């Protein structure tokens, strides 16, 4: 395990959630959730199955409206009521199933829904140049051609394309939902490098993962959800792997985590 780079928590977080609640009918999925994601940093969002990670990122993406709580984007309160609002703020989500069209090529996928035009014509040349520049900026070297169909790419390459697609749009916050879940060793390596470069190019990255090795490899901060509550949102230097696992499974670890009373209340 390499020592993660510690970055000072100075400046305003790109995204800050304060006291976010969300229920589906009678079931409250998110309880008073706080989260901060800083520019240039990777925030790992961890938690067991059903802890509310997906609901949380879907709230950030505007797919689920939150019931109460504050969302601040670059210090300003915002309300995200749809995926378009999120995109306009500069929030890009890379879902686990990637959402790429197999029958289109890399450039076409990266610009899908936001094609460039000259008149009514698609401006293929300018899109190809921009796609190539973005991939080069992220030091992606594994693609043979930007004009190859996505169906011919490996899992790692697809993940790369999906991430590059998110970066293309001057995005400030990129949320990655388990980007390494289905990948082999070498491909995981490539994607983790890419996640790191994403933060190093000034993006604020929220990285969902179940894999502690990956988390400690790239994250600057770690946020642990436990049964819909934020057990901890701390710089990664303050915790180690054992403590993170405790936070995920019990909601508490030493002085960190949900107050014992609350744990007793939810953890029955």
């Amino acid at each position, binding site marked *: 395990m390499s020592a993660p780079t510690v970055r000072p928590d100075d400046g305003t977080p790109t995204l800050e959630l304060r006291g976010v609640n969300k229920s589906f009918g009678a079931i409250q999925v998110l309880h008073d959730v706080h989260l901060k994601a800083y520019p240039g940093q990777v925030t790992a969002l961890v938690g067991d199955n059903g802890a509310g990670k997906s609901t949380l990122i879907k709230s950030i993406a505007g797919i689920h409206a939150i019931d109460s709580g504050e969302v601040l984007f670059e210090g300003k309160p915002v309300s995200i009521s749809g*995926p*378009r609002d999120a*995109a306009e703020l500069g929030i890009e989500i890379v*879902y686990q*199933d*990637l*959402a*790429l*069209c*197999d*029958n*289109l090529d890399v450039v*076409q996928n990266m610009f*899908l*829904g*936001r*094609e460039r*035009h000259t008149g*009514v*014509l*698609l401006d293929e*040349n300018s899109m*190809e*140049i921009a796609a*190539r520049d973005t*991939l*080069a900026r992220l030091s*992606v*070297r*594994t*693609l*043979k*051609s*930007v*004009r*190859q*169909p996505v*169906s*011919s790419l*490996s899992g*790692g*390459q697809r993940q790369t394309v999906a991430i590059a697609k998110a970066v293309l749009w001057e995005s400030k916050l990129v949320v990655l939902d388990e980007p390494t879940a289905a990948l082999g*060793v*070498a*491909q995981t*390596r*490539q994607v983790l*490098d890419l996640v790191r470069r994403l933060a190093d190019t000034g993006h604020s990255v929220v990285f969902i993962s179940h894999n502690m090795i990956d988390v400690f490899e790239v994250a600057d901060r770690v946020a642990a959800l436990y049964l819909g509550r934020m057990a901890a949102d701390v710089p990664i230097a303050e915790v180690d792997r054992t403590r993170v696992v405790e936070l995920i499974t019990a909601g508490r670890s030493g002085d960190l985590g949900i107050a014992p009373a609350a744990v007793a209340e939810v953890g029955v």
Partner: protein
Amino acid sequence: MSSAVQPAAKDVPETPAPQSGFEGDTAATTFGGVVRGYVDKVRGGDLGALPAVAGIVVLSILFTALRPNTFPTALNITNLFVQAAPISLLAMGLVFVLLLGEIDLSAGVVSGVCAAVMAVAMARHDVPWYLAVLLAIVIGAVIGLVTGLLVSIVRIPSFVVTLALFLGYQGVTLKLIGQGGTVPVRDERVVGIANNSMSVTWGWILAIAVVVLFAALQLNRWRSQRAKGLVSQPLLVVVARIVLIAVITIAVASVLNVNRALNPNFTIAGIPYAIPLVIALLLILTFVLGKTSFGRHVYAVGGNAEAARRAGINVVRIRVLVFLLSTALAAISGIVAASRLSSVDPSSGGGNTLLYAVGAAVIGGTSLFGGRGRVRDAVLGGLVIAIIANGLGLLGVAAYLNFIITGIVLLLAASVDALARRRAAATGR
């Protein structure tokens, strides 16, 4: 970008291939590279226009051998092209529907309804021909709008919606025309679409214009890609393609411009107006599908509707527009078919009309599974189907055999499509 700047220990290459970045973009610029790329593509299950071209060549040779006196004559070849026109037009619309992974089983009978509307309007209500034609196309579009809304908003599977409409619209045609009746189409401009030809001079001008336009578009694209250092094909391939199109166009034009009259006292020569109509729609729709956002979004919805939705594409709108476009083309196809027969009867657009058009699209290379296909597939496949229909007619085979053979051809085309898809999944294309 060269491999020298790569941090040596950090990147574990996924494949042992050189990792200089996008080297495939430059590999494709040699003639050999393109040929290899094409062979790989075909092996990988993407057959493109290959089955249709092979079909045209093999069937032409077969029927020429069986009926050397009647099949390869200027008269029959002209007939064949005119026969192919309504099939290709209907298939063009179906290409769009199939690209979405949907089906429109009612497209054939919609062409019948629209043709009946036009014929009844002209014959019984003295509507001028241009208004009658316009009315037919508008009704076609409205029918498609209804189908599209049922499919995309109510979310009834398209084959159920259009199967119900297939039955319903036959009733509409019957009601419009009356039991057992036939409505003649007498207007010479409408009849002329399939039965009159442009003068030989205009025919040559058209042929040369098509070749020049094609060459200009191809060369211009190549030049601008080259200038910006983008992925482009080698000049040799571009030129070869232009030469191929030029040879085919000029060969077809010279056959159609030969005097095909059986009576030596008359001269019948020139390109029937239905052919420039098909070419014009082929060009317009190819442009729409390949060069506009709408076309790109059609491919996207067919490839992965969920991805398209997340990318902010209005999937409902795309589906509705595609059904609308498809039935508007069905209306045009119905008009051309009515022009060819100079009449409309209650069975117009029924029978094997739809089967022929679906067969044409699939033989041309459009996938039944969505996401893959081009407008030209409709034209190439339409020619294959027309050759079969025409050839079997000349052989005088029994009607039952005609049905069986056409059914088998469609099944064959669908099998090729399904196998190609499996192969594509296996080779990761």
